[in-house]
């Protein structure tokens, strides 16, 4: 029941959908074997609805897409990276409460 506002990104379309996006993009790097990734999923869903039209919320499965996590030195999940104009604005590692993510998004929204 993930929000329909969330887009899925892959190694193949990451540059186009994330780096070249006109809006800021929050990418949630996750995998099926990661408990805390599941724990924050409902928070990510809510944020996708709340920031609709202001920040794009994207998910990338690190199991299926190893290149992009490697490119950003990701060695822990969940990792959330907020991109704006192709640059990393903020990186959040580990499961955090909604407020922490909300504060980061509010800075760019």
């Amino acid at each position, binding site marked *: 029941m993930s929000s329909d506002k969330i887009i899925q990104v892959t190694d193949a379309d990451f540059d186009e959908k994330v780096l070249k996006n006109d809006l800021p993009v929050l990418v949630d790097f996750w995998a099926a074997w990661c*408990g*805390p990734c*599941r724990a*924050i999923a409902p928070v990510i869903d809510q944020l996708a609805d709340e920031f609709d039209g202001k920040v794009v919320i994207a998910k990338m499965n690190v199991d299926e897409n190893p290149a992009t996590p490697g490119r950003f030195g990701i*060695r822990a999940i969940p990792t959330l990276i907020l991109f704006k104009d192709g640059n990393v604005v903020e990186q959040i590692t*580990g*499961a955090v409460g909604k*407020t922490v993510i909300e504060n980061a998004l509010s800075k760019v929204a």
Partner: protein
Amino acid sequence: MIHDLVIVGGGPAGLAAAIYAGRAKLEGFILEKMSPGGQVLITDLVENYPGFPEGITGFELVEKLSAHAQKFGFGVKNGEVQKIESEGENFKLILTDDKIVTSKTVIVATGATHRKLGVEGEERLTGRGVSYCATCDGPFFRDQVVAVVGGGDSAVQEAVFLTKFAQKVYLIHRRDELRAIKVLQERALSNEKIEFIWDSTVEAIEGKDQVESIRIYNKKSGEVTNLPVDGIFIFIGIEPVTGFIRDLVNTDERGFIKTDEWMRTSIKGVYAAGDCRLKPLLQIVTAVAEGATAAYAVEHDLS
């Protein structure tokens, strides 16, 4: 409206309390900042929860507990409590989004979180080789060399788990013997991929953008060595998540909440259950028992 009961935290203690509260037809809900589960979610395999002789994954156990709680109508709402204040006979829960929830009773079941080493490089390299969750991050260290810090159940269990991925696992412990339960010790001691570094503490974590090495201090010899590793997993115990209520109820100096055997805290109407409570054994089996007892106490005290 004023609720009968609000349970803060949706780990095993909170979910068990919800099962008993739901069956007692108490009105209220669980407040959970993420989705239910708590620390169990980062556990690979739960081997000591009675009734599951083959073990059960942390995932599955959480799913079963959540489904069980939902069945009796005591739901879960998303929210993070930043402070609890007493207001006459009731309690005012102030959430991080400044919303306010008022309830006659509160069960604090917020559990605990991992302790940090507090050394140079730890914060900066978190997510870049420093990890507190082997099940989450182990697969990033395939064929690499990692260190595990700690000597308790979690450290030893996760060190064994990490041998599935890493080519070598150093287990660094500040004493000369493990504190972990025997069955886990035996598994680690007989695992060829695990090398023990006794009597030692980690002084610093080094690396430019990724963990490259750690500085180790041997307490017996006084020797300081630099150990090249690709990752470091830290399991040196937990600290209770009770900052939001320490002004209200009695705790020990570390913040664990003191209760009587009904799970009542020093403040009438506030109860505590699970890992946030001061007790000798921090396990899922004790958490669920305390959740049940706390809900029973609420029912008893409200009637």
